[in-house]
């Protein structure tokens, strides 16, 4: 039983679990307790089996399914293996969590949820394993479909229905575009396998078309501008574990697809592709950060932050293309490594944060930041996990978020060595945008954590308490990986070596010489180096020393009293900053970016009322006009079907004459 077999077996097991779940008549609690842990087990297996495949020959296999002349081809190479590890790691945590989450209700009939959940997992695994366009598309759309049904679990709420609808429409259009991209890549006559595509040499024009189609199609799934609109709607609508999987893994499958097409299936890369991807990525990153900063719903906030992180990842991809198109492969490898690593990190901390919000919602029944607060005292464990996630996503050392961003910035810093002078000047500026986005993320996450867990509860939340062991296990698992990957980045980055050598023809080893398990370096140690472990050690050491010294030299006496607060009147929760208030400066500074509706109270109002609504300009610039156009056309076309039989006869008469004259 090779690791390949295991990897293939896991999706099947997931489907089986789903089917059993669908057919079983167990009670809700039993159901959750039995099937989701099984799913988690599958995740662990997948992770364990895929990791060795990172380094090692690609295995491939042809299944006796699919179209007659186009059987399902599966292939496990290092790139797929990496994302499979990602999937396994995240799904293990989330499934554990779900075992606790779904037995408390909060989402339709558990049997359906269980089925769709596991089909969702399996389809994601198959997307990564697919080695021909057909299986890929089947898995891809199944993924979309399963997630759609999961998003609309509570479909009695109109808002959730419309969110799901928007999601599925965008997803399907994206999928069709990807399909066209494969249409360009294939050689005709049933040669749809990726293997055939690899040997297909396209003209630059066609290749560019394919790349742009792929960028659009996969972007629609990853939530790049301007096809991001579904994301902040769908993520909050879904049950939290689902949001976690969607944000954590599904978006990454889009990144995988983009990488697969750009570096594996297309035989050439042009520099301007890189520029397009880079600028699009940075735009998305800034956009996501800004909008996240002004959200008042914690899941929306996280959704926008997903847009931001995916933007960063896309920028990384763009940089890789840029370097690779100029044959600066070592640098390309560095950028690629950073990108992949950020994928993994984002998967972990974002899903962690999403399930944290799940626990919070279950404990308090609220998801609006305006109602929460002070939970660190009611649910300390969740708060601790949340803190890890927050620090990680805010890109703070020594956690994993920082490691990948550090590498990415290093890669950006190397860009001046590009031969094209425009690029070498523009890319540093792009770096600034990236830096701004990262800094914004810090702002956003302080807002998130501070408003949810710190301060005083803004509503009565006394019944809030830590969740059951299953949920805690899930939280622990993901938080643990955030820390581990933060402290020992090199371990995994060096493991991704084969990917870089396969895709950009240079091993990361070349781009990070002299780095050890302890030190993460870029190019040369003296060029730049960073060691999270020592950093942490240093901090811990100093903290410990200071603590002891203070205790020894002085004392540790503590008195409790009411907060001082500049000697104001006794405090109440309403005096704190709300999420609204916390976002206000951003709103004010970056006002042009938002479509803002505000009604401010006048000083003389009996009951002063402040209302403000933030909307997405892109929606009004792009989507509304398109919808209008379609409406207009269809209202126009209505005249065709006018009801008068003479008219219909004239149609067919005219058609006849036109055709007759046509063929003359």
């Amino acid at each position, binding site marked *: 039983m090779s690791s390949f077999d295991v990897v293939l077996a896991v999706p099947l097991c997931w489907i089986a679990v789903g089917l059993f779940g669908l057919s079983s008549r167990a009670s809700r609690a039993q159901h959750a307790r039995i099937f989701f842990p099984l799913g988690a087990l599958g995740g662990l297996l997948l992770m364990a089996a895929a990791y060795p495949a990172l380094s090692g020959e690609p295995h491939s296999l042809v299944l006796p399914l699919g179209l007659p002349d186009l059987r399902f081809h599966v292939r496990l190479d290092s790139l797929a293996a990496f994302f499979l590890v990602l999937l396994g790691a995240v799904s293990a945590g989330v499934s554990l969590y779900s075992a606790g989450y779904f037995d408390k209700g909060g989402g339709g009939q558990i049997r359906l949820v269980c089925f769709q959940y596991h089909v969702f997992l399996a389809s994601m695994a198959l997307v990564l394993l697919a080695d021909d366009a057909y299986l890929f598309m089947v898995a891809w759309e199944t993924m979309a479909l399963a997630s759609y049904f999961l998003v609309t679990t509570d479909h009695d709420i109109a808002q959730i229905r419309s969110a799901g609808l928007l999601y599925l429409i965008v997803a399907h259009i994206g999928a069709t575009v990807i399909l066209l991209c494969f249409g360009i890549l294939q050689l005709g006559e049933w040669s749809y396998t990726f293997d055939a595509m690899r040997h297909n040499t396209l003209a630059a024009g066609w290749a560019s078309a394919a790349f742009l189609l792929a960028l659009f199609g996969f972007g629609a799934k990853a939530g790049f501008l301007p096809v991001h609109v579904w994301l902040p709607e769908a993520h909050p609508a879904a049950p939290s574990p689902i949001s976690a999987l969607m944000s954590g893994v599904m978006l990454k499958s889009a990144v995988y697809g983009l990488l697969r097409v750009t570096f594996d299936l297309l035989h050439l890369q042009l520099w301007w592709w890189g520029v397009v991807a880079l600028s699009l990525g940075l735009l998305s990153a800034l956009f996501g950060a800004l909008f996240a900063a002004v959200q008042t719903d914690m899941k929306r906030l996280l959704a926008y932050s997903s847009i931001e992180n995916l933007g960063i990842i896309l920028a990384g991809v763009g940089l890789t293309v840029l370097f690779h198109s100029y044959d600066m492969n070592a640098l390309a490898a560095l950028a690629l490594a950073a990108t992949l690593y950020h994928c993994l990190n984002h998967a972990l901390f974002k899903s962690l944060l999403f399930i944290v919000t799940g626990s919070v919602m279950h404990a308090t029944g609220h998801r609006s930041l305006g109602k929460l607060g*002070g939970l660190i*005292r009611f649910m300390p464990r969740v708060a601790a996990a949340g*803190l890890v996630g927050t*620090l990680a996503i*805010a*890109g*703070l*050392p020594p956690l994993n978020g*920082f490691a990948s961003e*550090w590498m990415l*910035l*290093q890669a950006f810093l190397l860009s*001046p060595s590009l031969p094209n002078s425009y690029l070498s*000047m523009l890319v*540093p*500026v792009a*770096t*600034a945008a990236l*830096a701004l986005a*990262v*800094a914004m993320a*810090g*702002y956003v*996450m*302080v*807002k998130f*954590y*501070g408003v949810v867990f*710190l*301060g*005083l509860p803004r509503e009565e939340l006394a019944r809030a308490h830590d969740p059951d062991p299953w949920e805690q296990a899930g939280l622990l698992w993901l938080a643990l990986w955030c820390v581990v990957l933060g402290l020992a980045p090199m371990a995994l980055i060096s493991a991704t070596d084969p990917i870089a050598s396969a895709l950009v023809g240079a091993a990361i080893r070349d781009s990070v010489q002299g780095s050890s398990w302890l030190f993460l370096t870029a190019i040369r140690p003296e*060029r*730049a*180096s*960073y*060691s999270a472990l020592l*950093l942490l050690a*240093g*901090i*811990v*050491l100093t*903290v410990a020393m200071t603590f002891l010294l*203070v205790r020894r*030299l002085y004392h*540790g006496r*503590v008195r*409790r*009293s*009411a*907060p*001082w*607060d500049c000697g*104001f009147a006794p*405090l109440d929760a309403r*005096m*704190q*900053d709300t999420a609204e*208030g916390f976002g206000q400066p*951003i709103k004010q*500074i970056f006002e042009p970016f938002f479509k803002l509706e505000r009604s401010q109270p006048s000083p003389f109002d009996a009951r002063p009322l402040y209302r403000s609504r933030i909307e997405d300009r892109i929606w009004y610039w792009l989507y509304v006009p398109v919808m209008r156009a379609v409406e207009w056309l269809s209202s126009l076309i209505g005249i065709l079907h006018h009801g008068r039989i003479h008219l219909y006869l004239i149609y067919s008469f005219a058609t006849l004459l036109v055709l007759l004259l046509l063929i003359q």
Partner: protein
Amino acid sequence: MNAGFFVSQLLQTVLAVSLAPLMLGWVNQCRAWLQNRTGAGVLQPYRLIIKLFHKDAVLAHNASWLFRFAPYTVFGCMVLAVSIVPILATDLPLSPVADLIALVGLFALARVFMALAAMDVGTAFGSLGARREMLVASLAEPALLMVFFTPALISQSTALTTIVETLAHRELTLYPSLAFAAVAFVMVLLAENARIPVDNPSTHLELTMIHEALLLEYSARHLALLEWAHALKLMTYTSIGIALFLPWGIAPAGQWAMMPLSVLAFLVKLLLAGAALALLEAVSAKMRIFRVPEFLGMAFLLAVLGMLTRLLLGSAG
């Protein structure tokens, strides 16, 4: 890796940590002089800190572990930061631990803990301070990175030691790009260290305060640590500035003879820098909070300009 490393490391750390309050005192003293006041004396910060250590800590009822944990973390971060910057000599065992970018990250870590702690008690001012602090920081951070990138480009490295080696110990060349960077750096420094014109360290007027609002609920040893950390931060920034823009006099690797000299040079630079800072603060007025973005935007612009000049002029820039 002989003992020498650790000696110099230890020396630098101890020196920096112990001198930090002095630096702060010196700046305040200069300001007093410039305002025709007899100041409290350069040792005032020490007195303050010691006094605070003696007091009993008073915590709000609902203060969580985060609140008590934060001061130590912040202090720890700052100590680590200051011991990474090459102040006396470039051969520091700790310097490979974090390059400039990681240093920025370290500051960010401290800041975030600070802000979270401020929000913990749930006072109006705490969250107000946190919000403003994060706002200023999120705008200052990119500018700071940009500032760092110029020397990084010159020396093909983001490791401070390498930069210093390149700038100080090669044949002396003047980099116009660094001029831009330097100005931008000063602006960022003012913002990050809560100095006028961005913030006024010597006021508790709720409308204007940023950094002080974070400390409102703290008392005794926690407050002491935070004050000290604040001083350390100023120290660190100054020494980074020195390392980047006036690195001459920092001892190259393994030259113990130069050590005393470099200590002396360092002290002189500190004095000058402090005086200059005081002067800057004295002549400028505190600006409205929403002017700050423009201020930092300017800094950011200058930094980018610096980098572009560097790219334009190539090796001569």
